[in-house]
């Protein structure tokens, strides 16, 4: 209960918000000016890649991270001045500012009592600094939106109906080329039922542009009307006697009374996060658009490869300058594009056998170039990335010429045949071992068919050594990312292998 006592004490220092206005509160005492504010930021990251994200935070922000027991979250302290850089992190999906962390929260016995406690909690939390951060963050996002609009050229593309969208708010830029062939940053949406439908970020773009528009037009109104808010509750734990909806509802009710804000589930200014994991509660305020879109994604059960996951996979193999990095089953190119953006001192090749995929990858690359053009204000700058149409079982690459292979292996689902995997996986691993540079080469492979993969790998001990496994959760599905090192043994083409290779049907999708 000591945390609650602390919160109550802090309450005495806080000025209450006047109704109908959001007023910048300056506090007396030990708190510093808003510009030098130190805050705790929470970030959601792909589960399994918490350490990778922590490494990126240390590298780019100089802060050390706490990795939460609640999987997929990391926490770190920054000064508010670094807020812009925080948004540039490539390994985080969503950001929030921590209002309060309550460790070892004592839940009462009955649901009524627990929910009453949540109601009481709302008024006792140290809201003012986090809200300052939220405000700075919002104005920073609006500046970005303004710049986007100035740089925007030509029309917006088609909307796909919101399924399987990759959320990448940082990179959402409304700068489309006039290329009629769908030039938007796409993501590989894997679902056996809609295997040729590729999801787009366009929906995101338009949705967030709508939000921006609303924000822009209502910017003047913000100061003159009550803020709109929602509460999102995530609950995990076996001993809770309440649901996340109930907690969100009652906590939200109290927040509404306290701030005199208006509750609005879809068109909100402030998103309050109530994260409950066993006995730990973290209250936060979202700094990125918490994905209503992503909630739709989980509903459809996708395995969308988010750019954050692509980043995590690339980081795992520690790319060095001049490394040649190949994704031989690139889909729409999520991994190579992330690679070309973040590791521009390497050379990236995106390959796939599906002409639709390769074309989309190429279009995504063009969009990336256009984005760079606008950002850097340079005419048609190229990037160290190329696309090729090829067959993974027969890669048209020189033996031992590739430093890193990184890919999402989609076979199990799209083929719909586990039996085929038994032939396919060994063939892939073999061909990958051929093109990969002996001794220094490595591969990072994401797969859901872990059984088949492990079995295939067990027969390749002479060329591949498994170094590390990251267990990931993708849309509720348990997958694994395997980091493999290429042994120094040179690839030997045996007649036996050639015979096995001579079954073309198994290599065509």
């Amino acid at each position, binding site marked *: 209960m000591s945390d609650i006592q602390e919160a109550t004490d802090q309450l005495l220092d806080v000025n209450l918000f006047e109704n109908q206005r959001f007023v910048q509160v300056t506090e007396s005492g030990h708190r510093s000016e808003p510009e030098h504010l130190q805050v705790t930021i929470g970030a959601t990251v792909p589960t399994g890649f918490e350490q990778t994200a922590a490494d990126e935070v240390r590298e780019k922000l100089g802060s050390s991270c706490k990795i939460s027991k609640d999987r997929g979250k990391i926490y770190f302290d920054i000064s508010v001045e670094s807020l812009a850089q925080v948004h540039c992190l490539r390994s985080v999906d969503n950001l929030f500012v921590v209002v309060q962390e309550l460790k070892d929260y004592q839940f009462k016995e009955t649901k009524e009592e627990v929910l009453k406690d949540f109601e009481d909690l709302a008024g006792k939390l140290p809201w003012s600094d986090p809200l300052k951060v939220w405000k700075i963050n919002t104005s920073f996002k609006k500046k970005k939106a303004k710049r986007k609009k100035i740089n925007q050229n030509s029309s917006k593309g088609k909307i796909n109906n919101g399924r399987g969208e990759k959320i990448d708010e940082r990179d959402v830029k409304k700068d489309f080329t006039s290329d009629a062939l769908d030039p938007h940053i796409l993501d590989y949406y894997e679902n056996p039922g809609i295997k040729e439908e590729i999801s787009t970020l366009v929906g995101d773009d338009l949705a967030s542009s709508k939000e921006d528009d609303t924000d822009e037009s209502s910017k003047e109104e913000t100061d003159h009307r009550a803020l709109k808010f929602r509460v999102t509750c995530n609950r995990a734990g076996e001993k809770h006697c309440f649901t996340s909806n109930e907690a969100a509802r009652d906590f939200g009710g109290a927040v509404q009374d306290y701030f005199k804000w208006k509750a609005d589930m879809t068109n909100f200014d402030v998103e309050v996060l109530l994260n409950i994991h066993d006995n730990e509660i973290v209250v936060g305020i979202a700094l990125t658009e918490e994905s209503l879109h992503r909630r739709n994604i989980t509903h459809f059960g996708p395995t969308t490869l988010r750019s954050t996951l692509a980043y995590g996979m690339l980081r795992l193999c520690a790319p060095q300058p*001049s490394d040649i990095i190949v994704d031989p089953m690139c889909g729409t190119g999520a991994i190579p594009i992330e690679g070309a953006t973040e590791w521009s001192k390497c050379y990236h090749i995106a390959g796939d056998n599906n002409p639709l995929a390769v074309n989309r990858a190429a279009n995504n690359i063009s969009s990336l170039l256009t984005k760079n053009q606008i950002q850097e204000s340079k005419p048609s*700058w190229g990037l*160290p990335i*190329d696309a090729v149409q*090829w*067959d993974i079982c*027969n890669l048209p690459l020189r033996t031992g010429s*590739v430093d890193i292979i990184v890919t999402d292996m989609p076979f199990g689902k799209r083929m719909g045949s586990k039996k085929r995997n038994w032939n396919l996986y060994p063939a892939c691993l073999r061909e990958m071992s051929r093109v990969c540079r002996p001794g220094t080469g490595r591969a990072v492979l994401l797969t859901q068919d872990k059984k088949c993969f492990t079995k295939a790998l067990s027969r390749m001990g002479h060329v591949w050594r498994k170094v590390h496994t990251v267990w990931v959760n993708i849309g509720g599905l348990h997958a694994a990312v395997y980091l493999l090192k290429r042994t120094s043994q040179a690839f030997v083409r045996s007649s036996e292998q050639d015979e096995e290779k*001579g079954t*073309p049907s198994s290599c065509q999708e």
Partner: protein
Amino acid sequence: MKLLTHNLLSSHVRGVGPRGYPLRLQATEVRINPVEFNPDFVARMIPKVEWAALLEAADTLHLVEVPEGPTEGYERDEKFLRKMHHVLLEVDVLEGTLQCPESGRLFPISRGIPNMLLNDEETET
């Protein structure tokens, strides 16, 4: 398709093996795309480049000022590195063909993307 990619590509028509390299390049449309110069990248890439293949491709495209090979102390020779940077990264073949030197099989390049897929017969033993 950049020339660095061409340098890595090899024909995989059955039975051809290492004689499938390098692919003979023919281009009908080429674009020059400035790419940010990174001397460290170029210097480290030099040992990985197959020079004969690069020179052959550069010759087909009638590129000028292509170094014949790594010069002494090339790592610190900015002029050399810039020339290599240009040849490897800034020349983009948009339309053309790649031909297997052994079997004669043609692979088309369209919109900058080489299509290296083989038919069933070409992959069968």
